[in-house]
């Protein structure tokens, strides 16, 4: 193996762009590993871990670009590193680029601006968000790793001025029919959404769209907004605004269970809202605070969409029916081809909320599940890289993504994990999510298909079969096209369900059925 790197002083690129560059480099012939990173201390450690070291790297700073490559021969290494400009300019996109480096210049150029979309690294994000608020701009704060005290102070500052901070650590919003960050293409309609997580909002809004209704606005408030520490500052701003908004006829609230103190403070305001509210706090049933609400309550994102749709259209969404002939036939078919060893389920998720919701559904069905992001602390995986018994892995956590592309952008990490699970003779079911929409991978199902087929072949060689179950979050208007992605998965023998909840409900039935075969309780 040969190693080399190129450093470009004072050449900053954003992390998503660099992930795409690294992905493209790693696909070149003879390239074993490629990294395209800014010279932060954390990134220097990552480079050292893959065997890339040097005095110039030690001296680099966060404004310097480092491209490092491990190759199996010198020729491959040279061909990539001598032509770095080509890799950095191949995918520059079509939006106009002005030589604007400061927020003040952007505001002067576009004085009617009403929103700052901020996705700089977490340690700088609060500074940029504060400047945007001072300019009277609402803020969509995509960045994660924003300190809690900064989040509170920014949100308080915003609320006092009639502004909102969406996020941090929430990648999705829809405002007036326009998707911001990782959002799906959904029609406008009467349902307003306040959501704590990006994929939760994506699933809900896609289900509403595919059922024929639409979304007025979906505001992502961030995973910590409803904690006791933050107390729902952005939640209250979002609720006030959606209650006043003429197009919004009903409001859906989607989150993990809020902090007890935050909840008791927010309940009177929620009950006071003069528009119908659907509340979905994901989590095990025994932890559910739903009893506190007179409003309509849901336990899954699909339940929430179904309730909201019923209120605005009067129509019922087709739901999962365990006793239906179709499901019973599928269970029997999948069970019949298993060998006695195959008893475990492995879920490999790109969306954190889908992993969380699937754990909830399995736990409610009496099935204990391990995870790197567990509902219950005692079922935390000792090693996130290694599954135990029934396991659901959130591949979007820092366990996997530090210095590497998020699985919604590049499925490489997921493909490696799927193959590893396929090698385990005790695995009988694989549960996957596929997330479409703006800024996600251009072909997420296509990236997974050959790996799924390979894992299925391995199971067959051992005399069994691998059931692969998936859901696709998205719409026909997304850049990736929902129907096309469904077709690709079905072509690879994947059982595709219309929602993440239904896919998990089917897996719970099938996993229970496999346990019955071998007498495991």
């Amino acid at each position, binding site marked *: 193996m040969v190693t080399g790197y190129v450093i470009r002083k004072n050449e900053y690129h954003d992390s998503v762009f660099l992930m795409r560059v690294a992905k493209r480099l790693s696909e070149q012939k003879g390239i074993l590993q490629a990294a395209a990173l800014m010279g932060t201390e954390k990134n220097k450690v990552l480079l050292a871990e893959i065997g890339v070291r040097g005095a110039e790297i030690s001296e680099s700073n966060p404004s310097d670009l480092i491209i490092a490559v491990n190759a199996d021969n010198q020729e491959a290494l040279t061909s990539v590193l001598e032509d770095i400009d080509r890799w950095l300019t191949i995918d520059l996109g079509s*939006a106009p680029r002005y030589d604007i480096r400061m927020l003040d210049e952007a505001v002067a150029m576009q004085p009617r601006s009403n*929103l700052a979309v901020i996705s700089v690294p977490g340690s700088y994000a609060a500074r*940029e968000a504060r400047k945007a608020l001072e300019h009277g701009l609402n803020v969509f704060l995509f960045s994660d790793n924003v300190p809690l005290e900064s989040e509170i102070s920014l949100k308080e500052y915003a609320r006092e001025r009639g502004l909102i901070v969406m996020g941090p650590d929430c990648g999705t919003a829809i405002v007036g029919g326009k998707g911001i960050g990782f959002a799906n293409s959904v029609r406008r309609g009467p349902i307003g959404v306040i959501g704590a997580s990006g994929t939760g909002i994506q699933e809900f809004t896609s289900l509403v769209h595919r059922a024929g209704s639409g979304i*007025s606005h979906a505001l992502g408030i961030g995973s910590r907004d409803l904690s006791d520490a933050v107390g729902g500052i952005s939640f209250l701003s979002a609720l006030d605004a959606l209650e006043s908004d003429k197009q919004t006829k009903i409001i859906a609230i989607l989150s993990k269970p809020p902090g007890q103190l935050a909840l008791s403070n927010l309940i009177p305001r929620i009950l006071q809202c003069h528009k119908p509210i659907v509340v979905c706090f994901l989590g095990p049933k025994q932890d559910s605070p739903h009893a506190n609400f007179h409003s309509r309550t849901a336990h899954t994102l699909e339940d929430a969409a179904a309730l909201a749709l019923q209120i605005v259209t009067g129509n019922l969404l087709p739901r999962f029916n365990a006793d239906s002939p179709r499901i019973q036939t599928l269970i029997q078919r999948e069970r019949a081809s298993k060998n006695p060893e195959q008893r475990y389920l492995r879920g490999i998720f790109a969306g954190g909320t889908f992993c969380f919701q699937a754990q909830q559904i399995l736990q409610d069905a009496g099935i204990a599940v391990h995870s790197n992001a567990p509902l219950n602390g005692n079922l935390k995986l000792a090693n996130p890289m290694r599954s135990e018994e029934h396991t659901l892995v959130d591949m979007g956590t820092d366990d996997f993504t530090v210095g590497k592309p998020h699985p919604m952008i590049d499925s490489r990490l997921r493909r490696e994990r799927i193959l590893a699970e396929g090698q385990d003779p005790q695995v009988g079911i694989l549960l996957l999510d596929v997330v479409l929409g703006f800024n996600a991978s251009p072909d997420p199902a296509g990236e997974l298909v050959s790996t799924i087929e390979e894992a299925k072949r391995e199971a067959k060689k051992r005399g069994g079969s691998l059931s692969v179950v998936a859901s696709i979050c998205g719409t026909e208007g997304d850049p990736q096209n929902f129907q096309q992605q469904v077709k690709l998965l079905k072509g690879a023998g994947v059982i595709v369900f219309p929602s993440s909840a239904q896919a998990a409900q089917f897996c719970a039935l099938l996993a229970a059925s496999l346990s019955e075969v071998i007498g495991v309780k």
Partner: protein
Amino acid sequence: MSNKLEDLLQQGPIAINIGVYGFAESLQIQGVQVVHVNWTPPAGGDPELMELLDQLL
């Protein structure tokens, strides 16, 4: 005092994008007016220098 969040919902977004360029592009594809800021870490990413600059400006 005008509520700027309500204005945002009524008018739709007119955006300034700071960070991931792809977010500007996806907004532009949807017909949103957007100005992208070519952000770089202030003071070369040196936190002490950054704090000094903030105090001066």
